[in-house]
């Protein structure tokens, strides 16, 4: 056993007293990251293991706008048992009441996996069969409540009547579909045939679910599908990744939460560093004695590195235990609150990841003070033994610290897969860190200056003097609290601005309704009837088809443009003859009115730049199974942020006019008249679907609220760590305050004066931390809103007030927690003890 280890072991005999902040900070940071990873692992495992159920089959092939051709159907059947589902939005009508619904038309084989849960519990076949010759429908209970429906009531979809047979409590494949505006209605696809809703040009999707034999080569089938289906705009999904949207969302959100967790670890690092510094300060005499007995600086460093290493390992193990166990303990709550299946278990990867982050953070924050301990000399024994560790560590330790920091950022970037976001987050944390340290130093200088120049405000001056004095309290408090509050402030500002932009500003500029599936012969009478209403201020309409950009300059679009949203699925495509009113051409030339030559495309300018498209490039667009290759001859400005009509691709009229299509219209109307407009429109044109923008906005707001809540919880974990550091700092300062209180009382200060002095300095520090956090949060919010979201930014006053108040309350409460001893202790006892 080495001398360093023997000495370290003897030192550790003193126990872990004084190390609870060290252990708590490290354990909490590691636990948060481990818990996020464990939950993410559980969701991913759930999605993988339940992939076939979520998807509704081992394979799903989705077609837009059409049913499968015989050869395609034959290909599906060659893989196994096939179920066909028709999926589209429509209006469900009950008397005069109408509501948007997502219609699912199922065949008799649905569902291939899992079961549909209905109330009353009747077989699905019976529910869809209906009664008295009227087909049946199973409707989402929320939708039933909204329309005041009971089992046995009649409803209409298009021109067809259905009888409500049951409430649709759960479809086994409901979580894989992602974001949906209308609650579902399940009917038999055969019954839809006469509804008038699936006529050519209607926006619908068909989903072919296939139950394959057990030992089926999915990869080979996926490859074969390219030969049969390529260029038709089909979408292939299989059970290996049954809900790619959710997987991607979970992956992104958890990676982001890990970054928030790393902020927590950085805050904890302040506490860890302070704890090591305080420990080394208390050991100054021991170190000086060791040095006087001949120990080298290196030996001293190793002795304390080993001790800190043992403690760090203990903290990390505690964190891994907590982070692994907590999700299991809250398993039932998690399972109930998440819309996806979860398979909770202790998994090695997230724990290893958390341990790696914990070890690197512990090393980063302890090496500096440990390096400083090398400077403690034997002579310290004879003077100033309580001065603690000071100065710069040797250059080697500075280099090692920089290398660890790089490793930490590199690990986060690699493991999260979000390189740019990690770099931005790391930059942000470091900038906030530096800003907070500078702010703390600045506030100390300012407080010192004010304390010297303020005359007459006794209590304030005492508090300012204490804040500006030589203690490290100001830095520890401002940095530890400020970092957590900064994250919270940024989330608060971004969340409020996003929701304000969507739910606050958008309804004022956006249309009241989007109306889709308007048949060409319905457009004119619809527009005329709407224009006759005083409440309607504007109607815009455009022909709309859906198509997939399959090739760019003869190359597979997905290979050229990667994961860009424009090429990822089917998009709305329009056509026009003359330049539509309000269109701004940014480059190239619009085809002339009456142009009948080779197909041409006008492409949205911003998206074109993102895709690297240039004038003269050719695009192949698959519309209704037919490939149309056209040349890009102009770029247009398209503003998607106002909620108006906006198409990435617009073609010359002659290229598309002959294809079956419908029209889309936007109606700008007074809010009060919206229900009447919907009622009249739906009565006159039962096939069309109207989407109320306010409802859509509310739905988006709800989703945003959920995401903001998840991030806020992450930020709160950071704040809890900050709170521990705060309590640790206050606890460490208690002795000094007891002493200060005793001297003040000796000189004639009342207990109220002592208390207000302590309280005021806490308020000053909290105010500083909150103020800086608010600045950082506002800066982050401004950056995100202006540069990423490209919208306006306003300071969210409510969130700002919460941050400032939170900062003050946190420091005040922790300060007061440790104020009673200085107040209660008799001066003589304290002062004599120091003699």
């Amino acid at each position: 056993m080495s001398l360093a280890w023997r000495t370290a072991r003897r030192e550790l005999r003193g126990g872990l007293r004084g190390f609870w902040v060290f252990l708590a900070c490290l354990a909490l940071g590691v636990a948060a990251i481990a818990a996020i990873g464990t939950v993410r692992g559980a969701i991913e495992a759930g999605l993988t293991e339940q992939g076939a159920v979520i998807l509704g089959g081992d394979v799903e092939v989705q077609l837009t706008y059409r049913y499968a051709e015989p050869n395609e159907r034959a290909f599906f059947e060659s893989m196994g048992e096939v179920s066909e589902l028709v999926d589209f939005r429509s209006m469900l009508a009950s008397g005069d009441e109408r509501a948007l619904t997502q219609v699912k038309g199922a065949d008799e084989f649905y569902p291939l996996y899992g079961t549909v849960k209905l109330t009353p519990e009747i077989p699905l076949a019976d529910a869809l069969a209906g009664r008295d010759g009227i087909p049946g429908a199973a409707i989402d209970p929320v939708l039933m409540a909204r329309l005041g429906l009971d089992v046995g009531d009649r409803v209409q979809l298009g021109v067809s009547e259905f009888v409500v047979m049951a409430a649709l409590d759960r479809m086994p494949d409901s979580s894989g579909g992602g974001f949906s505006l209308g609650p579902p209605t399940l009917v038999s696809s055969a019954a839809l045939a006469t509804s008038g809703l699936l006529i050519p040009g209607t926006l619908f999707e068909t989903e072919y679910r296939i139950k394959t034999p057990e030992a089926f080569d999915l990869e080979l089938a996926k490859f074969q599908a390219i030969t049969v289906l390529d260029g038709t705009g089909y979408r292939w999904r299989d059970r290996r990744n049954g809900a790619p949207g959710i997987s991607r969302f979970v992956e992104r959100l958890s990676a982001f939460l890990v970054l928030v967790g790393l902020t927590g670890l950085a805050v904890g690092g302040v506490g860890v560093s302070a704890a090591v510094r305080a420990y080394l300060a208390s050991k100054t005499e021991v170190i000086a004695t060791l040095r006087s007995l001949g120990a080298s600086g290196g030996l001293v460093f190793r002795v304390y590195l080993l001790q800190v290493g043992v403690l760090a390992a203990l903290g990390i193990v505690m964190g891994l235990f907590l982070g692994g166990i907590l999700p299991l303990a809250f398993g039932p709550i998690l399972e109930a609150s998440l819309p996806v299946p979860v398979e909770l278990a202790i998994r090695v990867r997230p724990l290893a990841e958390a341990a790696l982050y914990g070890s690197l953070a512990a090393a980063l924050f302890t090496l500096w003070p440990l390096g400083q301990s090398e400077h403690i000399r034997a002579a310290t024994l004879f003077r100033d033994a309580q001065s603690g560790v000071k100065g710069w560590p040797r250059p080697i330790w500075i280099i090692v610290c920089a290398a660890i920091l790089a490793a930490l950022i590199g690990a986060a970037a690699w493991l999260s897969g979000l390189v740019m976001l990690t770099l931005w987050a790391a930059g942000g944390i470091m900038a906030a860190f530096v800003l907070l340290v500078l702010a703390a130093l600045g506030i100390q200088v300012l407080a010192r200056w004010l304390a010297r120049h303020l005359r007459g405000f006794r209590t304030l001056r005492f508090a300012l003097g204490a804040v500006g004095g030589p203690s490290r309290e100001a830095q520890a408090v401002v940095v530890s609290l400020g970092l957590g509050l900064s994250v919270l402030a940024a989330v608060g500002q971004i969340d409020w601005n996003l929701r304000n932009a969507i739910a606050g500003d958008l309804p004022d500029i956006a249309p009241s309704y989007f109306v889709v599936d308007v048949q060409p012969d319905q457009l004119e009478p619809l527009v005329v009837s709407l224009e006759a209403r005083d409440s309607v201020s504007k109607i815009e309409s455009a022909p709309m088809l859906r198509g997939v950009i399959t090739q760019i300059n003869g190359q597979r679009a997905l290979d050229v443009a990667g994961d860009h949203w424009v090429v990822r699925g089917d998009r709305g495509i329009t056509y026009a003859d003359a330049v539509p009113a309000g269109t701004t051409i940014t480059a190239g030339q619009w085809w002339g009115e009456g142009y009948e030559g080779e197909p041409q495309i006008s492409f949205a300018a911003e998206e074109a730049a993102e895709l690297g498209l240039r004038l003269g490039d050719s695009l192949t667009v698959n519309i209704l199974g037919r490939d149309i290759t056209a040349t890009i001859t102009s770029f247009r400005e398209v503003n998607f942020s106002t909620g108006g009509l906006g198409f990435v691709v617009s073609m010359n009229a002659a290229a598309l006019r002959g294809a079956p299509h419908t029209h889309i219209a936007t109606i700008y109307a007074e809010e009060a008249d919206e229900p009447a407009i919907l009622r009249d429109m739906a009565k006159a044109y039962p096939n069309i679907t109207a989407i109320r923008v306010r409802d859509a906005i509310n739905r988006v707001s709800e989703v945003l609220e959920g995401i903001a809540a998840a991030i806020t919880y992450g930020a709160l974990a950071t704040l809890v760590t900050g709170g521990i550091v705060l309590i640790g700092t206050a606890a460490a300062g208690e002795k000094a305050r007891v002493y200060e209180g005793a001297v003040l009382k000796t000189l004639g200060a009342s207990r109220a004066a002592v208390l207000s002095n302590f309280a005021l300095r806490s308020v000053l520090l909290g105010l500083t931390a909150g103020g800086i956090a608010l600045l950082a949060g506002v800066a982050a919010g401004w950056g995100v809103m202006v540069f990423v979201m490209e919208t306006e930014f306003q300071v969210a006053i409510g969130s700002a007030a919460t941050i400032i108040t939170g900062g003050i309350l946190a420091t005040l409460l922790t300060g007061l927690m440790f104020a009673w001893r200085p107040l209660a202790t008799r001066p003589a006892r304290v002062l004599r003890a120091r003699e």
Partner: protein
Amino acid sequence: MTDPVMRLKDLTLSLDGNAGMVEILKGISFDVMQGETLGLTGASGSGKSSLLMVMGGLERASSGLISALGHDLTPMGEDALARFRRDNMGVVFQSFHLIPTMTALENVALPLELAGEADAFGRAATELEAVGLGDRGNHYPSQMSGGEQQRVALARAVVGRPKILLADEPTGNLDAATGELVMDLLFDLRDRTGATLILVTHASELAARCDRVIQLRDGLVLSDNVAVAAQ
């Protein structure tokens, strides 16, 4: 030396220690006259510092009576005692007890500020000047030597012109030369302000400079010798 500034009668003090209640003072009675310089001596543990703490209202007597400047200190609460000290007493400790987060000037001005004096800093600066530290006002205690810190503590003790000056082994932490300098300053200040000085000390040469010396042993007055000063 006419009227007593302090009266102690049957004063006892018991404190709760690790081994149970310990009787520190077992019945002390004496008067201190105005302008007097009183030395309290005795071996370690005799109770002299504890007695000084009780006289300064920093410790509450377990029984007996104690009055200062005609005020009965016995029933006073902690805040009332603090106010009384602020207005009437200055205290100097062996370990200086300066507030580490305040500069020398701020430490000296503190009692005046607590008393609501308008020109606290002007007077504090004058007092610092008087102890030879006029140029060190902006230094923190950690930036000063022990002797300098004790001089700041002396300035702080007398800046409010207290009627009673209490000093608990003020040279105990200083080397001989610095200690002598500090004692000269202390006696000068006493002479200048006319305060009554009550001094706890081990040093016989210091005791020799006092008008009167009370020697304690085991919590009791062993001797009360006015003549020591004359020897």
